[in-house]
């Protein structure tokens, strides 16, 4: 029976959400093409993970080896190449994460399997394998297809699919496979994790966040928005470019590579809304966005939108807030 592979992603003893999101989507596809849903799990002392995956998959391929204890794309590539050549899955799914980005393109090139990255949807359509992915920071969607092949590979965007646990659980068989790694991997070695430096401000604890993005234009404009944040009893947060430029410390960054926040109010100023940022703030209770571009993706995640230059809105808003506070006090 033809198989669909889903590579389980885990770190520091935790299976990561993307794994279950991919298994959920893969289950839908296996139903359509009558395939076996196979979770592939590499690591060391991870039998508990295998049991959990078995609830979501028809089969779990488990390879344990101390050389797989920490993620190393060179070690993963060797093991996965072997499994893919033996099982010839119709499709292999890998997360579009820091691990997947390191692993998938090189693995696909080595096996000459067509790959599409960062996909938000995909499937077999007639004779074709089609994918949907985003371009230009999420402003445009692209429908594309992969060159015809016996086997395809996709890296899947985080949170593109919502995990649904199969009812009843699939209770797939766990198949332990001896590790094909005979020698130490010397090209690339994992040394250690580096934790983010402890920050002065915990933005995850704030009720009100004023988030700033590229639209803030210059570091000299930061005090103005800082003041606005203060007048709302909140703190300043930001999207990635602000931290890259060194205008705010990294503990203020919201998004996949920063913090996930759920404040009562998230006021997004000059943030276009690339998914990396949106994933970190979309569950805020109230989102108000100000952006000059009426088609900025941020507006599809906001409760209220203002299409205007933030430099016109911020001073006006500060005045109105102060007026309202003065009225309340009086």
């Amino acid at each position, binding site marked *: 029976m033809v198989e669909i592979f889903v590579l389980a992603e885990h*770190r520091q003893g935790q299976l990561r959400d993307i794994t279950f999101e991919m298994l959920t989507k893969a289950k839908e596809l296996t139903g359509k093409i009558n395939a076996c849903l196979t979770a592939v799990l590499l690591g060391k002392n991870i039998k508990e993970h295998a049991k959990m995956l078995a609830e979501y998959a028809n089969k779990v391929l488990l390879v344990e080896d101390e050389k797989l204890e*920490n993620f190393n794309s060179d070690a993963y590539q060797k093991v996965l190449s072997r499994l893919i050549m033996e099982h010839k899955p119709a499709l292999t799914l890998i997360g579009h994460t*820091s*691990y997947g*980005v*390191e692993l998938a*393109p*090189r693995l*696909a*090139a*080595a096996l000459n399997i*067509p790959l599409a*990255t960062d996909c938000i949807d995909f499937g077999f359509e007639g004779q074709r394998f089609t994918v949907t992915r985003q*371009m230009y*920071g999420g*402003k*445009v969607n*692209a*429908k*594309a*297809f992969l*060159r015809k092949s016996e086997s395809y590979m996709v890296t899947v965007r985080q949170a593109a699919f919502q995990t649904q646990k199969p009812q009843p659980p699939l209770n797939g068989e766990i198949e332990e496979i001896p590790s094909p790694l005979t020698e130490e991997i*010397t090209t*690339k*070695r994992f*040394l*250690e*994790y580096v*934790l983010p430096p402890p920050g002065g401000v915990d933005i995850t604890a704030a009720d*009100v966040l004023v988030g700033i993005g*590229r639209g803030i234009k210059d570091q000299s404009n930061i005090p103005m928005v800082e003041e606005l944040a203060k007048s*709302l009893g909140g703190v300043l947060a930001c999207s*990635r470019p602000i*931290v890259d430029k*060194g205008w705010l410390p990294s*503990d203020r960054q919201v998004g*996949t*590579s*920063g*913090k*996930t926040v759920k404040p*009562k109010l998230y006021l997004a100023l*000059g943030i*276009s809304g690339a998914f990396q940022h949106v994933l970190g703030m979309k569950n805020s209770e*109230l989102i108000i966005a100000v952006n000059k*571009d*009426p088609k900025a*993706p941020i*507006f599809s*995640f906001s409760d209220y*939108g*203002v299409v*205007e230059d933030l430099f016109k*809105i911020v001073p*006006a*808003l500060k*005045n*109105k807030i102060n*007026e*309202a506070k003065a009225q309340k006090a009086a």
Partner: protein
Amino acid sequence: MDIIVCVKHVPETAEAELKIDATGKGIEKAGLVFDINEWDDYALEEAVRIKEKFGGTVTAITVGSEESDSTLRKCLARGADKAIRLWDPKFAGLDAYATAKILYSAIKNMHFDLVLTGAQASDDGSAIVGPVLAEFLGIPHATMVKKIEFGEGKAIVNRELEGGLEERLAVKLPALFTIQTGINEPRYVSIMGIRKAMQKEIKVLGLADIGLSENDVGEAGSWLVLEKLYVPPVEKQATFLTGSPDEVAAKIVEILKSRGLI
């Protein structure tokens, strides 16, 4: 240390309103400013800094039509010693995989200790070219690199993981690294510097020069073939607040009051 930096000439779209063009497969380019891909900008800066510290050369290389020359000029002005542009009309329609093949065909004959690329391009966001190029060159790689240090025959790099976490890896040299934004602060290039770079040569190589055939490039040599572009469907549309800045501000304040936020 001889370093090759792969760069891409892309439109700046972060703050622009985009329209899909008549072919349905591209965006309207009129009115858009083109520049070096942001991630590549950091990669180039990192290469120049390494050269300044350890000596050697920096070569900027791109796959693109004549318009890409301005990005290569910027690289030369920033401190690259040489610039190479790979282009042939037959390349049209190529994806990231075919791009990596083309880069490989040119780079395999060059001497290098290090190859740097951006972690991704801002237009297609594939994040494919770097690791595939490393596979073709048969050298180790690391992606989303935020710090590079050098040891005996190896580099120690920090890779960005999720949620602020990083990992440190030891990677044998020569190697390829894809660079994440924020690794450094790219220097400012003066108009004078760009003018001076205008006099430097940009070497242009076509299909035959790099020993590839028509089937290796363009759509035929690609993994991914684009069918159409469309505006993403809106899942949840914001209620737009309109009026003068004062009127909009008043409306926002009313909303905040009603939620007990003021």
